[in-house]
C-alpha cells in the first residue's frame, strides 16, 4: 500500500484551511478516520441500529454480531488469551478509572502504595490520586531518564512491599519514546506487583502482544487508532477481572436482580453496565484492520523512518529548538519541543495559518511540564498518512514562523 493510496482512504486529508492544504500533525490527540471506518459507522446507524444482547429480533442480532465481532478483533489485535478479557469502555480514561475504582476497592488499603511515572497523561494520574484519597494510600512517582525513557532499575529501587499497583505509559504522549514495558513489568512481577499499561499512544505505534508484555491491564482509546470516538478498550487478566467488583451497576452487568441481593454477569459483561456504544464499537474492526495493514506496509515503514530521521535531525541541529524525548533508538515520530524566546502558542497560531495543525500547551501532562521546567510545549505527531513532503513543509514553516517571532 503506497502513501498515496493510504491518503486517498482519508477524505478529510483533502481539506484546505485558509486556502492551504491541511497538514494534520495532531495525530497523538486524535487520528483521522479512513473511509472504511466512516462507512461502517454510517451503515450501523442506517441499517443495524438496535440495542445489543437482549432482544430476539433481527436488527438486535445484527448489532450484537457487529459489537461482539469487534471484541474478537481486539482480542487478536493485542493477542489477548481470551475474548472475556476484553472490556469495552468509552476510552482509555474510562478504562483506567475502572481499574482504579474496582481493583482499588478490592485490593488497595490504607498505607498501600500506587506507583505512577512523571510522564503520565493526567488520565493515568488523577484516577490514582482519587483512589489514594479514598483509601489513604500513597502515590509514588517514578522519574524518566534524561532521554525521556523509564528505567527498570530505577523502578526496582522505589518498589516496596507496600506497592499494590504500578501504572505506566507505553509511550508518553509528550516524549514520544517507547518504554521498555516488558522489562518494567518483569521488575514489578518479581516483587509481586501487577502493572497497568496506558497504551493510548503505544497501541498506535507498536505491535502490542499483551501475553508477551505480560502486563496485567492494558488500556487504550479507539479514536487515536482510527476508530470512532467514544470507544475504548480495557484488557485485563482474567484473574484480576474475576476478583474485582463491578465498576458501575445496571443494564447488562447483572445475572439476577433481587432486592435481597444481585448477582453479576460473567466477564466481560460484568464491566459493561448500561447501554453500550454499539454504533461505534464495531468501527474498531476496520480501524484495527487499517492499523495493521499500515504497520505491515513497507512503504509506510520507510516513509515514517524518513520522517523520523529528518525531523529528529532538524530539531536537534537547530540551536533555537529544544526537543524533549531524545532517546533516538526508542523514538517514534512524535516531537514535543520548545523554541527559545518564543511562546509555544504564538508558533501554533502561525503554523495554523500555514495550514499545519499541531498541538500546543501542556498536553494533559502538567506534572511532566513542571518536571521539564516549561509552561507548555509544541507537539507535532505523525501518522502513516503523513508524507515526507509534509515533514519538510512543517520544518520550513516552523523556521519561517520562528523568524517572524524572534
Amino acid at each position, binding site marked *: 500500500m503506497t502513501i498515496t493510496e493510504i491518503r486517498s482512504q482519508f477524505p478529510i486529508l483533502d481539506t484546505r484551511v*485558509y486556502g492551504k492544504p491541511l497538514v494534520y500533525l495532531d495525530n497523538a490527540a486524535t487520528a483521522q478516520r479512513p473511509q472504511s471506518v466512516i462507512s461502517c459507522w454510517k451503515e450501523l446507524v442506517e441499517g443495524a441500529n438496535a440495542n445489543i444482547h437482549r432482544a430476539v429480533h433481527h436488527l438486535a442480532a445484527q448489532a450484537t454480531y457487529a459489537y461482539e465481532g469487534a471484541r474478537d478483533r481486539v482480542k487478536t489485535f493485542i493477542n489477548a488469551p481470551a475474548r472475556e478479557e476484553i472490556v469495552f469502555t468509552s476510552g482509555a480514561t474510562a478504562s483506567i478509572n475502572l481499574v482504579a475504582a474496582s481493583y482499588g476497592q478490592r485490593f488497595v488499603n490504607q498505607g498501600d502504595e500506587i506507583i505512577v511515572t512523571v510522564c503520565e497523561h493526567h488520565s493515568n494520574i488523577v484516577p490514582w490520586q482519587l483512589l489514594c484519597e479514598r483509601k489513604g494510600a500513597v502515590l509514588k512517582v517514578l522519574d524518566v531518564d534524561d532521554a525521556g525513557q523509564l528505567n527498570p532499575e530505577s523502578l526496582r529501587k522505589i518498589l516496596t512491599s507496600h506497592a499494590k499497583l504500578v501504572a505506566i505509559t507505553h509511550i508518553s504522549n509528550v516524549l514520544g519514546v517507547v518504554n521498555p514495558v516488558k522489562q518494567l513489568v518483569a521488575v514489578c512481577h518479581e516483587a509481586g506487583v501487577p502493572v497497568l499499561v496506558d497504551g493510548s499512544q503505544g497501541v498506535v505505534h507498536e505491535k502490542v502482544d499483551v501475553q508477551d508484555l505480560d502486563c496485567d491491564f492494558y488500556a487504550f482509546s479507539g479514536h487515536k487508532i482510527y476508530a470512532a470516538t467514544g470507544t475504548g478498550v480495557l484488557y485485563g487478566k482474567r484473574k484480576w477481572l474475576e476478583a474485582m467488583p463491578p465498576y458501575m451497576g445496571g443494564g447488562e452487568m447483572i445475572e439476577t436482580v433481587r432486592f435481597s441481593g444481585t448477582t453479576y454477569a460473567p466477564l466481560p459483561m460484568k464491566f459493561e453496565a448500561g447501554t453500550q456504544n454499539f454504533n461505534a464499537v464495531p468501527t474498531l474492526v476496520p480501524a484495527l484492520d487499517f492499523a495493521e495493514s499500515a504497520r505491515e506496509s513497507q512503504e509506510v515503514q520507510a516513509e515514517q523512518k524518513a520522517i523520523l530521521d529528518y525531523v529528529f535531525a532538524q530539531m536537534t541541529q537547530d540551536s533555537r529548538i529544544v526537543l524533549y524525548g531524545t532517546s533516538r533508538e526508542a523514538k517514534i515520530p512524535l516531537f514535543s519541543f520548545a523554541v527559545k524566546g*518564543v*511562546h509555544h*502558542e*504564538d508558533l501554533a*497560531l*502561525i503554523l495554523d*495559518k500555514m495550514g499545519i495543525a499541531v498541538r500546543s500547551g501542556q498536553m494533559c501532562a502538567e506534572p511532566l511540564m513542571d518536571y521539564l521546567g516549561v*509552561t507548555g510545549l509544541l507537539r507535532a505527531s505523525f501518522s502513516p498518512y503523513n508524507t515526507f513532503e509534509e515533514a519538510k513543509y512543517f520544518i520550513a514553516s516552523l523556521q519561517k514562523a520562528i523568524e517572524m517571532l524572534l
Partner: protein
Amino acid sequence: MTLEEKKQEIIEEFSLYDEWLDKYEYLIELGKSLEAFPEEKKTEDRLIKGCQSRVWLDAEERDGMLFFTADSDAIITKGIISLLISVYSGRTREEIAGDDFGFVAEIGLKENLSPTRANGLVSMIDTIKKLAENGR
C-alpha cells in the same frame, strides 16, 4: 482622534493585508513595540483570566481619562492587547463602558483566533470594560 476615528483607522489598517500571516506580522510588530511593563506590576490581580498565555493589564486614571498598560508572555496576544490599548487608552470611563467593541469582530480578529485564544480576547475586552466601569 475620536474613538470612532481611531477604530476606523485600525479597520483600514487591517484591510490592507489580505493574508492572515501578514495580519499576524502586523500584530507581532505591535506586540514588540509595546511600551515596557514593569515586572513588579505583573501581579495576580492584574492577570487576565481565561487566556492560554499570561496577559497583565493595568489602568491609571489621569485628568478624567483612563490610560492602560499591558504585557503578555506571548507576542501575538501582546499585539492584540496593544491594539486594544491603542484604541481605548486616553478615553473617559463613560466612552469605554458605553462602547460595543464591535470593531474587533469587524477586523476578523475573533473568528481568526482559536476558540481558546478567542476566549482570551473576550476576557481582555471584559477586563477593559470592567476597569472602566468599576476602576480597580
